[in-house]
């Protein structure tokens, strides 16, 4: 089922002079991309650079206006992803498309089941998946239920799906978005073994570190064109970033530590669905960062603090007042602002105008008088914030959905910062935001801190947490398992803690909130402590 490529010297696929125009924009402008068989090729670029359009053209989801697609040296014209799959291409999307309640085997063969007398041949399916696992060293149990598997393993199931369908070229869209650093490393091991076996991998990503460590060649796109073709071995992160943005960008900047003052937020023994016994404090003039792999209770913790999730036990004090069971509205009155993780589904109403989006929250306080909310003050308020936070919107009346991800995020962060609340909760402030906008957002958060506010930051980007936070907490399995002062945690330490590799003893001493857990926790062999954490989770 894995046909050998006809001629190993030919490119696995070639896109020649691809142009694709959408009303008003040239998404792809005569793009050439040739990917050699057996390489890991990274396709990089900011949001809107045209990578997705290009991959959609390759995968038969869009028809190009001009240009040709060649697979294995033959010119092809795919009408649908089905055609592309038949030609040996396979794409795995950022969000997994798996059935949690089915086994690995069932997920892998779904839609392409081996049949016998018209019925699904379960034994053959199982054999087939076991063979694939064996052949590629993927270390997945074919009989495990997908819902029980860690995220990193689910990713392998996605890859198995592609291999089962005979994909010789695998296109992976942001494959490491939800992985820990060590899971990401393991993924690259798998990808390398696939390319060693003659398959080809295309990574669509914006993570520089992985591209540098895991790829052979890099193609960088900007404004619909290819702006750089680099051999990974000969390039640097700065060179790629400069190509992506068109200017040099300070990457992974670590900001000065703040000057913490009064305690603003004190959370003690907080337990809610997904959160166990969380202890933490945030002081004025301090950013506390929470690191963790997505899905380890960070979102739940923040929701509980914001009043959107019921608290089962414990206490939340904001500026000395108990808000444990206060409504979301009450918390805002008491001085809490919140930038949620999902800016489209929660943080904004994309169909509403920019002005209406910017008014939310302010509509009850500054903008209205006795329930009257004049459209004029909504508009003026919007003009002011657009100016102050550099949101690029053609007018306050335009729908928020017309803004780019970065601009929408600036709108959201600007709106919440403008509340001037003593406590700001921020989740994933730069997820899906262009490198260019990231720096602006970081500076806003630092300035907010320096103005004497408390900030609780949740981010899956380790470099972001390390650069911004004055203290870093790590969440694992709904608990806060470690705490480090700024500069005392390198990526490896954090990565280990994020994978549960520290003792889950209460990390934050009441009197001395900056004692690093690494000092109190045993520094024993990571495997051992990881096991401890595992057993405790089961209890």
């Amino acid at each position: 089922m894995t046909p050998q490529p006809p001629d190993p010297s030919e490119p696995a696929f070639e896109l020649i002079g691809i142009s694709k125009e959408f009303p008003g924009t040239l998404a792809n402008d005569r793009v050439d991309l040739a990917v050699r068989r057996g390489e890991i090729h990274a396709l990089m670029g900011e949001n809107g650079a045209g990578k997705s359009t290009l991959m959609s053209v390759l995968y038969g989801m869009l028809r190009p206006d001009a240009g040709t697609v060649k697979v294995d040296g033959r010119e092809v014209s795919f009408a649908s992803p089905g055609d592309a799959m038949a030609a040996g291409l396979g794409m795995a999307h950022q969000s997994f498309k798996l059935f949690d309640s089915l086994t690995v085997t069932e997920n892998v063969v779904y839609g392409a089941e081996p049949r016998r007398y018209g019925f699904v041949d379960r034994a053959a399916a199982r054999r087939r998946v076991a063979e694939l696992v064996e052949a590629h060293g993927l270390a997945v149990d074919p009989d495990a239920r997908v819902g029980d598997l860690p995220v990193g393993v689910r990713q392998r199931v996605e890859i198995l799906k592609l291999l089962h369908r005979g994909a010789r070229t695998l296109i992976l869209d942001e494959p490491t978005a939800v992985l820990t650093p060590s899971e990401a490393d393991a993924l690259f091991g798998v990808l390398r073994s696939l390319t060693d076996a003659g398959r080809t991998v295309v990574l669509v990503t914006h993570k520089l570190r992985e591209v540098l460590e895991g790829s052979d060649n890099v193609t960088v796109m900007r404004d619909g064109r290819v702006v750089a073709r680099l051999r990974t071995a000969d390039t640097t992160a700065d060179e790629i970033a400069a190509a992506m943005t068109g200017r040099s960008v300070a990457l992974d900047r670590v900001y000065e530590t703040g000057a913490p003052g009064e305690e603003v937020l004190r959370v003690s023994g907080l337990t809610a669905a997904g959160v166990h016994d969380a202890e933490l404090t945030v002081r004025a003039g301090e950013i506390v960062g929470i690191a963790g792999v997505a899905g380890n209770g960070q979102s739940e913790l923040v929701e509980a603090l914001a009043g959107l999730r019921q608290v089962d036990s414990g206490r939340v004090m904001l500026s000395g007042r108990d808000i444990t069971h206060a409504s979301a509205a009450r918390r805002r009155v008491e001085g809490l602002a919140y930038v949620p993780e999902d800016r489209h589904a929660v943080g904004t109403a994309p169909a509403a105008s920019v002005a209406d989006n910017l008014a939310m929250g302010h509509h009850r306080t500054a903008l209205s008088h006795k329930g009257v909310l004049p459209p004029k003050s909504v508009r003026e308020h919007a003009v002011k914030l657009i100016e102050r936070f550099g949101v690029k919107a053609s007018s306050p009346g335009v729908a928020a959905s017309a803004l780019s991800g970065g601009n929408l995020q600036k709108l959201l962060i600007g709106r919440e910062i403008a509340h001037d609340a003593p406590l700001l909760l921020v989740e994933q402030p730069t997820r899906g935001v262009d490198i260019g906008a990231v720096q602006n957002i970081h500076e806003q958060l630092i300035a907010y801190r320096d103005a004497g506010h408390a900030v609780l930051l949740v981010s899956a980007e380790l470099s972001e947490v390390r650069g911004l936070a004055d203290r870093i907490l790590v969440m694992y399995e709904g608990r806060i398992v470690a705490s480090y002062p700024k500069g005392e945690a390198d990526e490896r330490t954090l990565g280990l803690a994020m994978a549960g590799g520290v003792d889950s003893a209460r990390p934050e001493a009441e009197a001395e909130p900056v004692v690093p857990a690494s000092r109190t926790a045993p520094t024993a062999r990571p495997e051992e402590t990881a096991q401890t954490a595992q057993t405790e989770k089961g209890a």
Partner: protein
Amino acid sequence: MATTLPAAARVLRSPVFFSVAAALVIGALFLIGTGADPLTAYQAVLTGSLGSDGIGSTLTTGTSVLGMALALAIPLRAGLINLGGDGQLVLGGIAAVAVGLYSPLPAPLTTVLAVLAGMAGGALYAALAALCDIKFGVPLLVSSLLLSYPAGSLASYLVRYPLKEPGSSLPQTERLPDGVALPAFGSSTVTLGLVLVALAAVAYHVVDSRTTVGYEMRMTGLNRRFSAYAGVERGRQTLQLMAVSGAIAGLVGAVGVLTFPFRFLDGSLTAPGYTWTGLTAALLAAAAPLGTVLASFFFAVLQVGGLSMERTTDVPRELTQVLQAIVIVFLAARLRITWRRRKSDEPQKESRKDPRKVGA
């Protein structure tokens, strides 16, 4: 409203205009198919509904259609669907007629009291549906619809037994005492009821565009999670909007008994289907205040004009119902097409950001 020219252009490009135009064209094809002349038929609809003979009837029908459209549009603006309009309408009518018959006060005061009683009846009943949603988790769509039936049955019982007109063979109450009625304009059938409903429309427009309540209502309709995140309390909002919705439905019921036939006749309030025409109008306008008024008027014209068309030409009035249905089908199809286009446009959307993205 501020600028007319872009607004006009927007109207021409809007799915509503497209749907209405398409319905008229397809309706014309139907007419040609049956051998009728579409121009004559449409002309009959217009002269029948807007001519001097028909305009009064159109405004009377329009009062009820607009009232029910507002009753459904107000919760719809916040994404809530009140399917219990019939029940609230009937309870409003029966409450108004009961007060009208038994109030010891002078006639003008009784009339005012009857209107208020009708509104209160509708409001309380709609609030009950809201409470089922908030307290017991019965979806509003279901609770409001199911509560509608017992309300109708209660009214039927009341006009057959306790409130029945002695000696009459019809299930109806006695006629209201002289003077307990909404004053009419001149000799027409148009009454103060139209003014009351129009005032409700104006109030809705003002609240919608210029108050915090209206703002929160719109934002909830556009993204429920967004408004919850910002602290809008869903339960309270649901209760308030449903109460207002029920009050307006009750007002329509009260107007229905305080004008001809000046009594409650079982089934007479719900038979013309104002609730459903109103819902259609509210949906067509996406619950926007001005649009709801226009759509209600449009459907009133179709309803009244259809009758007149049947009289003057050979075309059955059902054609106007066909037109109404086609408008809705096109509107629904059109929404779906734009939705699908948006989905397939995702790469495009991304690329559209290009020019803006760099200078952060």
